[in-house]
């Protein structure tokens, strides 16, 4: 009995150790986003709260917590409040199977990849429920758009991950990363280059980020599925979106860029230098690069039209992934070194 309680407590401590940095990262991703978009537009971004605006996310959080949660008349009150929770829960649960370093993982399960696919798919229920329960046509339109987009890109994303499976013969994330070790040329990005690009673009579409943010579409449907949300409920949506972004950035680094493996591996002399840096630092560097690319996309690209998004997902990504899967399968059968042995 005592042991079970201690085990549970220990798990809670581990969860806190993962989630607190995630929340901090989310807060500062919003800050980085505003700064970066400002910079590309020749502005300086937030720089008033604290030194160079470093306290801006905290001020934002305080503001959102203090604000009233408005529940619209005619909305389904229970579903209205359940929606944001259903959206954020999967994006946080998914962190449990992420290996941050050799053995540094909360749940080292053998179907980690399946679990991740399942969790990132469940998030869309939160969006649909939120859009429906709001009793607003804009929210409903946004929810529909978001749902169809996530469903469409899930397929291309899944196919891209099948490529990873073919290379690593495992659904366990730790094994997927270990299978890539050697040098940065043996990482999955090289044999799976088109799949990597498709996975990454689908990841941008999955998180409803620019240029695939028709679900928000402030010019036509105000803010999409979360128009009616205010205060903390809105903050939850916001948090979940950014947590998802960071999650997919980490996943891309794990699946295609060798996770915690050092990029200096396999290079004489430099190899020892790379080994002195803890693996988690390499993972964080890789993940923050992808988060940066998310923001960079947002600062660069205009929003896709809805039919263009569907065309890209169904008519381009799915055929390309299937063709490249054939190539990968062939290379795998031929035991093409150094990736497929």
């Amino acid at each position, binding site marked *: 009995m005592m042991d079970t309680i201690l085990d549970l407590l220990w798990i809670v401590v581990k969860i806190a150790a993962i989630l607190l940095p995630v929340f901090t990262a989310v807060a500062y991703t919003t800050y980085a986003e505003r700064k970066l978009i400002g910079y590309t537009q*020749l502005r*300086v971004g937030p720089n008033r709260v604290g030194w160079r605006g470093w306290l801006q996310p905290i001020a934002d959080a305080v503001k959102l917590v203090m604000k009233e949660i408005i529940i619209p008349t005619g909305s389904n009150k229970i579903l209205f409040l359940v929606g944001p929770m259903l959206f954020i829960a999967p994006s946080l649960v998914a962190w449990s199977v992420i290996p941050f370093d050799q053995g540094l993982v909360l749940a080292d399960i053998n179907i980690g990849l399946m679990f991740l696919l399942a969790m990132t798919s469940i998030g869309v229920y939160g969006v649909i429920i939120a859009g429906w329960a709001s009793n607003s046509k804009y929210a409903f339109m946004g929810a529909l758009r978001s749902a169809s987009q996530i469903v469409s890109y899930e397929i291309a994303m899944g196919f891209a991950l099948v490529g990873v499976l073919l290379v690593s013969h495992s659904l366990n994330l730790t094994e997927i990363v270990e299978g890539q070790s050697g040098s940065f040329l043996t990482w999955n990005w090289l044999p799976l280059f088109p799949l990597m*690009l498709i996975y990454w673009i689908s990841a941008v579409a999955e998180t409803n980020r620019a240029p695939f943010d028709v679900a928000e579409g402030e010019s036509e449907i105000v803010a999409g599925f979360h128009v009616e949300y205010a205060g903390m409920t809105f903050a939850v949506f916001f948090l979940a979106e950014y947590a998802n972004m960071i999650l997919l950035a980490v996943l891309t680094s794990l699946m295609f860029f060798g996770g915690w493996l050092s990029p200096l591996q396999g290079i004489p002399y430099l190899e020892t230098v790379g080994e002195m840096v803890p693996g988690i630092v390499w993972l964080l560097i890789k993940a923050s690069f992808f988060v940066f690319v998310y923001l960079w*996309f947002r600062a*660069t690209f205009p929003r896709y039209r809805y039919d263009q998004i569907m065309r890209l997902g169904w008519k*381009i990504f799915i055929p390309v992934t299937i063709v490249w899967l054939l190539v990968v399968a062939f290379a795998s059968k031929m035991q093409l070194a150094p990736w497929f042995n």
Partner: protein
Amino acid sequence: MRFIRDFINTFFLLELVRGLQLTWRHMWMKKITIQYPEEKTPMSPRFRGLHALRRYENGEERCIACKLCEAVCPALAITIEAGPRAEDGQRRTTKYEIDLFKCIFCGFCEESCPVDSIVETRIFDYHFEKRGENIMTKGKLLAIGDRYEEQIAEDLKAQSAYR
């Protein structure tokens, strides 16, 4: 041919990469933001901001209640009532009010004034906290004029050649 070129440009994401290069370059360019309350943009001497009523150097108010400004005002923002002054019986305004909610800051009042009494200053950042504060009374206008007389005189001098 064009079809093939377009296909290559889009399929291999070349167009998108070019866009990313552009924003990348902009990220490192010099920022043009002006930190407003500390830094301000240069302002023309003809700037048409908040109004003021001026006085002569001996302290006598310039306005002679000719009502030209009231007549020229396209937004009907100016209200003037005139009468003999109690002390010496001179014709002066007993009421001179500008409704800032109506005013469109066209500067016609300033141009029509024969004695350079009503002017528009460089003040553009002000606020109201209560209803009714948008009406600039004679007292308030004169106070602004007294406070910024130096700047107003300098600006009028700068543009006098073009009037």
